[in-house]
């Protein structure tokens, strides 16, 4: 594996890790982590309850 391949791979791994971490964090913060695209939905709080709430 040459250096450029290694660096590009590293960028991709960082990008994937960032996406996964971000989705996880959003879910924890009661934002939409499901990817259902319901962020403007009036009922989203019901789907994505805040952590710790019933």
């Amino acid at each position, binding site marked *: 594996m040459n250096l*450029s391949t290694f660096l*590009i791979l590293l960028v991709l791994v960082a990008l994937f890790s960032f996406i996964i971490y971000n989705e996880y964090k959003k879910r924890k913060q009661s934002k939409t982590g499901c*990817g259902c695209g319901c962020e403007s939905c009036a009922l989203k709080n*019901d789907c994505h309850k805040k952590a710790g709430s019933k």
Partner: protein
Amino acid sequence: MEIKIALAGNPNCGKTTLFNNLTGSNQFVGNWPGVTVEKKEGRLKHNKDVKIIDLPGIYSLSPYTLEEVIARDFLIEEKPDVIINIIDGTNLERNLYLTTQLKELGIPIVAALNMSDILQKQNDVINIDELSRLYDMPVVEISALKNIGLDELQKTATAYAGKKAGKPVSFSPELEETLSKIEALLPATVPADKKRWYAIKLFERDEKVLEKIKLTPETSSKIDELIEAYEDRVDDDSESIVTDERYNAITSSINKVHKKDKTKKLSLSDKIDRVVTNRYLALPIFALVMFVVYFISVTTVGTWTTDFVNDGVFGDGFFLFGAGREHYEEALGEYDLASQEIEAFEEMQASENLTPDQLKSATAQLDVYSDEGELEEVIPVDYATYLQAQDVPEPEPSQFGTFVPGIPVIVQNFLESVDCAEWLQGLILDGIIGGVGAVLGFVPQMFVLFFLLAFLEGCGYMARVAFVMDRIFRKFGLSGKSFIPMLIGTGCGVPGIMASRTIENERDRRMTIITTTFIPCGAKLPIIALIAGALFGGAWWVAPSAYLIGAFSIVLSGIILKKTSMFSGEPAPFVMELPPYHLPPLKNLLSSMWERGYSFIKKAGTIILLATTLVWFLSNFGFEDGRFGMVDMQQSMLAVLGSAISFIFIPLGWGTWQGAVATLTGLIAKENVVGTFGVLFGGMSDVAENGWQVWQNMQAVFTPAAAFSFLTFNLLCAPCFAAIGAIKREMNSTKWTLFAVAYQCVFAYCVSLVIYQFGAWIYGDGSILGTVIAVAVLAIAAYLAFRPAKQYKPMKAGAELQ
């Protein structure tokens, strides 16, 4: 110090529009009840110390609907500093009914008299000062839609917050006397400012308040005696007595404040409604409107923009502002023809083994095909033509104008220049750009669809459709309330499923949840557009037919399910008001379109990107000769997995591993079906392009009948995981959720099977056995739809699935 302001008002009085304008939010605004089923919070745009809570639309503070319970619990428990009571000026009497109840809560109220602009148009006059004096509360005239009077409303509400509440509306002296006696019997735990409200609720025998307040048996019997005595005196039940008293007070006040234009004739809205909601014309008009919406979105405007994104941004590139494109395409056409002539001549030379002398007098034949793959022309290619063709240079786009290369070209050039490994080039170009680009390519069509749907919602037409549908649904034992989730579901199935909460009848609610996702949501649009473009040459009827299949499935499922003992019963009554037609502000339409469309772009950059990368990995790696590594796609892990389940779909005409895998990945998000094809068929920009050569990629796997069956199955089968999660939450039962998913999959399978087996005859590859099975399926469906309905039995414990 934080100020808490609650927005309360009737459904469809403009609360959410006002909330959005006050807070700068972009909450979904709908023209039908049920858009706000739970409360929403935001902060005032220019004063973050002010919290604004948008409560669900309610007609009263009675405990009969979920919205009413949510709203009144909030008002009693959370004690906002002030209530902004939005009153629809065009329906003053009904709106003031809620006002009379809010006044009893002991919370300061500021009335926002909305739709003042419409009142002016109708030449109606409301005496604001008199209204304010009669109800002992400040009244501000506003138009939430046109942003009129909102500054004054904010100032008045914040100034009035925490102040002493105005006097409640007075009833007759006899009722007031009884209420005073009940107030005196209330326990000391009831706050002084809430005593009147509790007294009235106890007088009305509100069970929820009775449970909450926990009276001693002695007090309870004393209150009962007071109520019964009063009921005997006026010969009516206590709840009706209070209602009558409220309306008496309202009628007397309206006579003093409201001057109607008596010369008024039929309004424009009424005239339009005479046609649009006509008994016979309503349904054809609706079908025509939806046809036009999908036709414009997928076949015309949407296609032009999508072609640009697919062929330009995610293809070879594009000419800036289109300058030079025509000349380039002309030159490219000449070059392509010359290349084909060379190829045809050299093929003839090779096959007939001609000598150089013989070549000079030989003539080859070039078959020219149309975009649809039909033979268009036969061109003779002689030696002179062959020599001329060799002199035609390959055109360089940059010579014809400012050419911007497409993303794959830029990335490929970069990767090659840095000597990136081929497998990583494959991952980036075929996996990431091919997959994500496939989905993003269809975003313009989604934007057009969302804009048109927002227009239909905003102008008031969709509210009429719900009304029209109620009349039709009722004939099949369904309620028009089931149509509202279907309307909302055209954007995203999740809020559609949630909107079923407005249906009080548990059986109808469950049935609506099961059928809502049959209507194509925005995420299914790319699948429709892909199949329409690649397999049907962009035929005009494919996209509207997808919507009609969804609507038909809802009606058929409704009829079939209603005849089972699990769902039988009278449909719930459906009451909704029809807002006057108006031209929705462009800002609202663009905002609604952007909010819905942007989430798809974000999803493409996150969930779809991860999914298509995984699909690329699984479709390029596998075991060969006992070693794990890059293999031919047919030997990949994905091919093995897809092949293992593909037999299930053989009767549907697409029993290939690609189709099976795309359907599975569609469960993550429906756009993934397209993303997966983008990876598996290598470069979706080509597939979406209008050329029969590249359509062969998909035509090799799907016949048109199989493709339509695939489209139908993916439209109707289990929705994405997010929507299944919403079903689970709303059903509150794993067994009901499994039933819903199983029903959707079986129904989708049956419809797709019938479509394929009959459709196959049109394309000349029908089978006798398959047709017999399809006829049997149709016969069973007809029996289930036309058999007598089961007797309605009230549900008993243990009789349900859960």
